[in-house]
């Protein structure tokens, strides 16, 4: 049964806190999320190497090494709890048994960590969405989809405690719309196409999770909003554009929760706070401590409402201190101690305010993720009846938030950024009231890029 979120899970913006979620969850080895503590979520990947059968032993030894490190370092750092994420690389999804093998290795290490030192911990597994190997992507059938589905099932059977994905339905249109600065196209991709794919996918993932009695975590708009963020950081897109894409992208990620996901959302889903405000589920976030994976202008603001705090990804290479994953685990551990000390001493609101104030006006992308903005965008989303209207409303609210900050003299934007803000505002105002009208116009413009049947259209 699909859930329909018509109201927020919190009463005011100040109810949005780090370490606390209205609907906590327990996963893996007694790891309770959202009930008063923030825990590290460690993510890692292979260094430069070939990933195939011939090199499989070397691949396995990397993950063994990371598993051993986690056991050792969690004791050294006195971690109160830990999530680790195994993000499959494409061949590990194409060959589901490969992903399953690594899953079981990591699961074994976590079990040992729990037995040896009582560590509360869990393993998040994220198969790769390889369905866009063909263009236009074939999302609901074919070899790639079969492998993705099997990968979820095999990893669940091999010991994943929760499943996630960075799904890509709608990206084929969103990419082009973003390059052309076409907000109407972005709303079509994020509000019409992507929700249909997320619904298809998450109905399957939730069924697999319930069969294996594990947790359906959440999706991420990485392929949409993080691409926009990277484009902005390379000076290719206005920052305001990326900020508005971020707000708009929350709706497609919300659909996973409508289908039964219960969190925690993926770390690279910076839209997480909006999801938390609506669904009440715990979220994973990344920011300043994920600069090993990519840069972002939302460093401290991103931490303001997290339940898990992640480094997104780091190669398993040697640094002067030790392995890079261990270095980042230490970094996350200290970040989390600070969060948790603030909660323990009753100063979490002050700490949250510092995190927000430190860079909220550095970038419109940070501004739209503050607790106040999050609350406003989430409120705009739940008021609307359809995914299309929710996406348009989230985008408009983001524009309103940015405009207000400029009027209040708090946010300074370069003239060309302001020009784009007004341009985006006009396209959002011109959006048709009814989805069908947009679908008609957009299929003329972008029809060559997507297959309607992939979206049940």
């Amino acid at each position: 049964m699909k859930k329909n979120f018509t109201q927020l899970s919190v009463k005011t913006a100040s109810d949005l806190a780090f370490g606390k979620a209205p609907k906590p969850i327990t996963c893996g080895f007694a790891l309770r999320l959202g009930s008063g503590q923030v825990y590290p979520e460690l993510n890692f990947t292979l260094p430069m190497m070939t990933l195939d059968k011939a090199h499989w032993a070397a691949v396995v030894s990397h993950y063994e090494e990371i598993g051993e490190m986690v056991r050792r370092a969690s004791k050294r750092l006195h971690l109160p709890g830990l999530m680790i994420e195994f993000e499959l690389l494409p061949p590990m999804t194409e060959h589901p048994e490969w992903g399953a093998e690594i899953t079981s290795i990591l699961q074994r290490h976590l079990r040992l960590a729990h037995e040896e030192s009582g560590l509360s911990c869990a393993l998040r597994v994220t198969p790769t969405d390889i369905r866009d190997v063909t263009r236009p992507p074939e999302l609901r059938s074919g070899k790639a989809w079969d492998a993705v589905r099997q990968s979820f099932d095999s990893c669940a059977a091999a010991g994943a405690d929760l499943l996630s994905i960075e799904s890509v339905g709608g990206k084929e249109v969103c990419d082009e719309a973003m390059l052309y600065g076409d907000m109407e196209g972005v709303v079509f991709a994020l509000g019409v196409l992507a929700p249909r794919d997320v619904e298809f996918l998450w109905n399957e993932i939730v069924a697999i999770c319930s069969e294996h009695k594990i947790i359906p975590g959440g999706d991420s708009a990485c392929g949409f909003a993080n691409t926009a963020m990277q484009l902005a950081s390379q000076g290719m897109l206005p920052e305001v554009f990326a900020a508005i894409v971020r707000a708009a992208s929350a709706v497609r990620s919300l659909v996973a929760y409508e289908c039964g996901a219960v969190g925690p959302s993926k770390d690279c889903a910076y839209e997480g706070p909006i999801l938390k405000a609506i669904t009440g589920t715990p979220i994973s976030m990344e920011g300043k401590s994920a600069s090993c994976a990519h840069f972002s202008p939302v460093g401290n603001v991103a931490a303001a409402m997290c339940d898990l705090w992640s480094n997104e990804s780091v190669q398993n290479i040697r640094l002067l201190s030790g392995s890079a994953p261990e270095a980042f685990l230490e970094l996350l551990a200290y970040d989390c101690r600070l969060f948790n000390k603030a909660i323990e001493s009753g100063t979490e609101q002050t700490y949250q305010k510092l995190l927000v104030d430190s860079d909220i006006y550095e970038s419109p992308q940070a501004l739209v993720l503050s607790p106040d903005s999050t609350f406003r965008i989430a409120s705009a989303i739940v008021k609307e009846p359809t995914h299309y209207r929710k996406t348009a409303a989230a985008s408009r609210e983001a524009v309103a938030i940015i405009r207000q900050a400029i009027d209040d003299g708090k946010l300074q934007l370069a003239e060309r950024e302001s020009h784009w803000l007004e341009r985006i505002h006009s396209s959002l105002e011109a959006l048709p009231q009814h989805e069908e009208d947009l679908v008609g116009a957009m299929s003329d413009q972008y029809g060559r890029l997507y297959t309607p049947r992939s979206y049940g259209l």
Partner: protein
Amino acid sequence: MNELDELAQCLGQGQTKRVADLTQQLLDKGVGPQRILNEGLIAGMAVVGEKMRSGEMYLPEVLQAASGMQASLRLLKPYLVKEGAQPLGKILLGTVKGDMHDIGKNLVGIMLQGAGFEIVDLGLNVPPQKFIEAITDHTPAIVGLSAMLTTTMLNMKTTIDAIGAAGLRSQVKVIVGGAPVSQKFAEEIGADGYARDAVLAVDKVKQLLGVSAQG
């Protein structure tokens, strides 16, 4: 301002219709198509590239200019063909096998096209054999490889080696790019060039082909 300068300026302002009208006027006046291309379009796009580099222009504005260029080229093409004019160069692009990150590669293609190069884009997840077939079919001057994963960057080496084994290496220059790639890595795998971003990719291609900055 002469009409060629005006053409270059309108291109930079994204005035597609005006660019097409001016091109026609210039042709009607007997101005040579190669001159229109070099002093109007390519000069205009060089300014656009410069503005993008300095942060004065965003990609959508560059694309608007590029569509003006295409509109103009449609009018020029028959004349250029008649004159036997040589295009600046053909570039073959692809994201290597196993990798589906393609937006960076697409941007490189867009910027190169804007600079007057002809692009053959093989898409993503491209195996070495497909590059080899395309080199034979299209005879490009440059092959551009993109990779975003630590576990696919070595497929760039496999691809370069395969091009060599097929006896085609001396016919093409190879440039590489993508988040985990570096100049050092490019040298190690025997590529001819590396570019950190799409704007620098244009410079690198021009350098490898001995094309001046103005085109």
